[in-house]
């Protein structure tokens, strides 16, 4: 995928994330304070605005993702803004100068992005956070670097969703959900669902083309 295609993919992804607000809000009302969906909607609405602005002309795919991350970080606030912003910023920095997004580049984006997220928030897999979806997706991506992106991405997205599903069984140790303890069992972490959705919608876009 070239920069223009990646830009269109992210526009589609952002629109679908905005549409997912009610679902994410409903999840967060169970295990959090109900603002996750609203925050994601706010962040991705800003992304839509950014991507529809013709003056926004990033130089390469790395730069593109860095600027997406900065926009998320500054427009959303909250833990989600810091975490999802960091994912795109750190992942973007690691692929600076790239003009073609393929499976290998995408795996590097996810690996380094995950590292950035860890340094920011210290969450590890099993802590019932977005990291559970990100780690599962990244693990898949690392095994699929030789496949074309349109063959790897469905599997990456599916793994991330399975990672999100697994958070149902986990007890939250981060954020506002941690005080609920065992009461969080049975419910997916909203951040993990958002992470899985982002990869899912990227994949949906590629396969609509």
């Amino acid at each position, binding site marked *: 995928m070239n920069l223009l295609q990646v830009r269109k993919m992210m526009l589609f992804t952002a629109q679908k994330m905005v549409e997912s607000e009610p679902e994410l*809000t409903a999840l967060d*009302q169970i295990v959090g*304070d*109900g*603002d996750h969906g*609203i*925050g994601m909607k*706010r962040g991705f609405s800003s992304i839509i605005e950014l991507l529809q602005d013709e003056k926004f002309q990033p130089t390469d795919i790395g730069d593109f993702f860095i600027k997406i991350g900065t926009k998320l*970080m*500054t*427009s*959303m*606030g*909250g*833990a*989600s*803004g*810091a*975490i999802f912003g960091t994912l795109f910023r750190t992942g973007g920095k690691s692929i600076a100068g790239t003009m073609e997004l393929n499976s290998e580049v995408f795996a590097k984006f996810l690996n380094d992005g995950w590292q950035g997220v860890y340094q*920011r*928030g210290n969450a590890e897999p099993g802590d019932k956070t977005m990291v559970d979806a990100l780690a599962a997706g990244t693990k898949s991506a690392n095994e699929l670097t030789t496949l074309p992106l349109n063959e790897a991405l469905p599997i990456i997205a599916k793994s991330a969703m399975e990672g999100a599903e697994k958070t149902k069984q986990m007890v939250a140790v*981060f*954020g*506002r959900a*941690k*005080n*609920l*303890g065992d*009461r969080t069992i049975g419910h997916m972490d909203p951040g993990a669902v958002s992470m899985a959705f982002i990869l899912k919608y990227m994949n949906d876009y590629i396969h609509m083309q």
Partner: protein
Amino acid sequence: MRKPKKLLNDPNNVRQEVMQGLVYAYNGKLTAIPDYCAVYGNHISNDQVVVISGGGSGHEPTFAGFIGEGGIDGCALGEVFTSPSPDQIIELTKATEKGNGVLFLYGNYSGDGMNFDISAEILAEENIVTKTIRATDDIASAPLSKLSDRRGVAGIMFLYKIAGAASQFEKYNLENLYQVVAKANANVRTIGVALDGCALPQSNNFNFELEENEIEIGIGIHGEAGLRRQAMTSSDEVVKEMIDRLCDDLPFQTGDHVCVLINNLGALSNTELLVITRKVGIELNNRGIVSHDIAVGHFCTSLEMSGFSITLMKLDDELQHLYDLPCQTLGWRK
């Protein structure tokens, strides 16, 4: 199911309208940075360390309502129950800092921590020195063994008071200011209870609801689950349990001098608040704990949540001196 009813305009504009309301309420003593939804006081002097706070809206007068002489200097307003973003904090810091360093003082929540940390990293690149205190007074949010995991609730008001007096009147340098506010934080304990939940402005549902005959002990200010949900009981019984838990946690002992805060979380009546205050007074007297000062009212609210919290701050000579200096803010005057 009962639906929330609020007297608002566009729910997406709440924080901007709160900011504008603050500017009017401060009547010339507050400057807004509208593009970044941040405010600062017009009292800041060139020879002080600047104290900046921030956090989600929905807790008014916390956080921005404590800007003023003897209070904090600036505040970044997040969306309701959501931390501010780094660009807000960075712009506010640049607009207010005087070259003597900046103290970030806010509640210990993951989103606030990350966004203030990101801001501190970026400001450091521009040679602006910051130090950070995260208020951790909520005893119900984590056990004593994990004190650094505890969240900040109404007790942050006492930290603002100490920080504002030390920086503005006594001209503490950044390191000394950090030390005294850290000491105050270690001496403050809060516990809250809720009778019912609240609803976010964008939402048509309550975040949580308690049954008609239920009360939750140890609730957080975003409706975080507390220590125990139990059947409704008398005010005195609830207050006694809260004071017992507070006194066990620090512990507060006979002869201690404390400042007391009876905080309305939103929807309780003043009548109930005074009945609560009466029992707090009786319980502290019974323990031989001396109330140096008592504040009663709305200080750290949670939208329309029905409930209250009790905070105790143990004083030493330094804290008592700083506490007794004047304070002129919207949310609290002394």
